[in-house]
């Protein structure tokens, strides 16, 4: 059973990973975006970690809902509403149970991913975070390690893609050959999940 403690470990591991990788995310974004993804993600997840430390919710759903709300109100770029919607919707799907199974988490993440797809009007293959998240959520039924590997493979698979959403889409063919920064940060999110499970 995954309890609130597990979800707090997940969010804190993610905040550390984003902090550690902020420069790389911004570098990826400099190639096809507006060079602020690392900065924005760091601002958002630093605020999430601070909010969870100040007032640690006691259910998995409440941890994700609070984290999502903090992201929407602090990030300032598109990653705020996108990641905020992902976590908040997943949190709502988990309801107020004190503990959830890995299968329930996978199901909740799929609900969050569907909400993100609706919000951004994107689908798999558009060179977005969905290209890492969708395979990861599918592999999560197998194991946390399989989910991490699927997210990393998914992020790598965005390199040859043509961007169809966001600022990178204005670049057309010039977006090809670069890893999508959102898919890269999504791989961190899934990697932190495996770290929390150790």
């Amino acid at each position, binding site marked *: 059973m995954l309890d609130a403690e597990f979800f707090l470990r997940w969010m804190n591991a993610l905040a550390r990973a984003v902090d550690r990788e902020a420069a790389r995310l911004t570098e990826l974004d400099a190639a096809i975006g507006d060079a602020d993804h690392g900065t*924005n993600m760091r601002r958002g997840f630093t605020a999430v970690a601070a909010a969870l430390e100040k007032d640690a919710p006691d259910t998995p759903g409440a941890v994700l809902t609070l984290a999502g709300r903090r992201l*929407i109100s602090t*990030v*300032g770029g*598109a990653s*705020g509403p996108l990641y905020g919607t992902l976590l908040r919707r997943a949190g709502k799907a988990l309801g107020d149970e004190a503990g959830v199974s890995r299968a329930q988490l996978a199901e909740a993440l799929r609900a969050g991913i569907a909400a993100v797809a609706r919000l951004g009007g994107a689908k798999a293959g558009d060179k977005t975070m969905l290209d890492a998240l969708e395979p990861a959520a599918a592999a999560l039924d197998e194991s946390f390690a399989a989910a991490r590997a699927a997210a990393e493979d998914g992020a790598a698979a965005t390199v040859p893609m043509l961007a169809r959403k966001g600022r990178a889409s204005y670049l057309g063919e010039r977006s090809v050959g670069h890893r999508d920064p959102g898919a890269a940060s999504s791989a961190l999110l899934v990697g932190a999940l495996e770290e929390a499970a150790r």
Partner: protein
Amino acid sequence: MTGVVGIVLVSHSAQVAAAVADLARRLAGSGDGVPVAAAGGTADGGLGTSADSTARAAREVDRGAGVAVLVDIGSAVLTVKALLAEGDELPEGTRLVDAPFVEGAVAAVVTASAGADLDAVVTAAEEAYGYRKV
């Protein structure tokens, strides 16, 4: 609903939001008739959009007749959609308008200043896409 429709302008840039608000007010000649609020830039003064200042602006212009929110690009669109999905963050009757930012803002403020309801304001702003320049 009674009262006048409020207008919120959300841009990545504080200057763009404020300047378009000013332009729309002046071209509409509405004086203080139509409440127009600008929500531009991030909380710390940088480029980007702020969910908090967007929600604050919507509450500020709400007179009970609905609020039309016009946005520029990217995160401005996503931020307002995410706030609307939240349910209780924006005043009742808040609508995200699919319109060009400058032209749509002028059309919205002019229409609202004539006492039109939210549907008419939204329609006028969206029709601004149809005005060809060449």
